[in-house]
């Protein structure tokens, strides 16, 4: 029996699944029975580079204090999408977004909303670690200071470095340059720097893709800790990583070359990796894609 025959067989048996499979206009709604608090609500978001539409019609409810992973083939718009969540996308000349992104009760794209304030509430960690040419201490303290932090800076630096699982490795050399750290340590320094600003949401775009396995594991280990205080959205090309660290997983997909990327399936991570609704998702997570 071929896979498509098996899929038809499956559709025949599970009428409810079939409706979801075929309709799925609301791929971004959280699974039924889920009553977590809402961190961000994205509605009909599309993103453009000049005349090119890179992402279309994404609706997604992002749960607070959970890790949401975004996976999918490269070029399907994951980075573009995640940058729309803190108005980083529009920094690129000619780039713009349509639709709405709500954080708490604020539409971050509403007229009069200040991108700088949004980026403080929604922090971002990039693929390549990018520490400042300052001391380890200043890397963490600086962002908080310019954002008007008035409290105990020493305490803030220690707490942020601890949350990023870096404190023990750097506590005796806080005055040394951030450049002296290994790649994995630099990335955790960047996470600490993001945390020091005390955002509500942390976006990470393939934060471990340039790191060795041990550093990758350390970054993953911070996730469980981070979600106690923050909402985390992470793009990863490593599916096992998504399976290990996230609570929800969104699969982005492009139907035909040149089409914009779409959110193809969004569900609890457990569901995506044990029994996804759509064939394309299953092909992708089982590595049968392409």
């Amino acid at each position, binding site marked *: 029996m071929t896979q498509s025959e098996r899929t038809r067989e499956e559709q025949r048996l599970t*009428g409810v699944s079939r409706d979801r499979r075929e309709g799925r206009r609301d791929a971004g709604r959280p699974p039924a029975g889920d009553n977590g608090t809402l961190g961000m609500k994205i509605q009909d978001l599309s993103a453009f580079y000049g005349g090119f539409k890179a992402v279309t019609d994404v609706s997604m409810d992002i749960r607070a204090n959970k890790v949401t992973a975004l996976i999918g083939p490269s070029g399907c718009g994951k980075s573009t999408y995640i940058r729309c969540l803190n108005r980083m996308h529009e920094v690129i000349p000619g780039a713009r977004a349509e639709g709405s992104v709500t954080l708490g009760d604020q539409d971050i794209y509403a007229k009069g909303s200040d991108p700088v304030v949004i980026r403080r509430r929604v922090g971002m960690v990039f693929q390549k670690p990018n520490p400042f040419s300052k001391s380890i201490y200043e890397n963490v303290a600086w962002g908080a200071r310019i954002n008007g932090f008035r409290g105990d800076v020493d305490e803030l630096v220690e707490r942020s470095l601890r949350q990023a699982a870096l404190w023990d490795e750097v506590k005796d050399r806080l005055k040394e340059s951030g450049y002296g750290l290994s790649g994995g340590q630099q990335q955790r320094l960047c996470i600490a720097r993001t945390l020091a600003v005390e955002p509500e949401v942390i976006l990470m775009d393939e934060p471990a893709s340039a790191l060795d396995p041990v550093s990758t594991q350390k970054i993953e280990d911070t996730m469980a800790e981070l979600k106690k205080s923050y909402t985390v959205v992470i793009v990863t090309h490593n599916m096992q990583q998504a399976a290990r660290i996230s609570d929800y997983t969104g699969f982005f997909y492009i139907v035909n070359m040149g089409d914009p990327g779409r959110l193809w399936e969004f569900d609890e991570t457990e569901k995506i990796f044990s029994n996804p609704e759509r064939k394309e998702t299953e092909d992708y997570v089982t590595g049968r894609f392409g």
Partner: protein
Amino acid sequence: MPRESFQQELDNLTGDVLNLGREVGASLENMVRAMETGDEELAARELGVDVRYKARGAELDRDSMILQARQAPVARDLRLLYTVQSVTNHLVRTGALSEHICHALAETAGAERDEDLEASLVEMARTARNIFNEGLDIFEHRDIDRARDLQAKDDKVDLLYSEAMNLIANPSDSGAGAPEWRMRAALMVHYLERIADHGVDIGGSTVFLVTGQRIEDAMRQYLERDINRDGE
């Protein structure tokens, strides 16, 4: 398609499980024939097959664990490996039960029998064998519609079970058969009921493999869907 060698390994493992299933099926066939024809020599030839089935089952479990460790399977691959392990377990147990029945038949060669009870046993053995074969066929062809029907066929086994147990508890005055045979008959009735259950479970595992749902959930959803249709 990417991961061709992984797919090949999954296909091989599934093929090995089906082969074990066919061997166990052949043992069941011998058991039924030995019972139908009173051929104790045929029954005696089955003695010890359970050891071979257990060893084969352990090999299949090991292969499946190695694949899990090396390939980090998810979704349908994970469901397949899970199902393969569960089906293997059902096959090994069915093989052992069939051997135990043959053992009982060989041991009671020549003992006087209760004809009504013997007829019940033969009927039960045939039904159990059919259910097993059908369960294996459902697994091979992923034919999950038939898995639901299989559950209904198992009800017949339950009926025969009560009937046989009733005959054991209330023997007729004449022709009650030798006590050592009656005692073995009670065990055989129990073993046959277990064999039928393993067959039904192999079908149920296939529902999980294809849909990711337990057969009970799948059936409920299916029934609810029909009710909703009627209401439209």
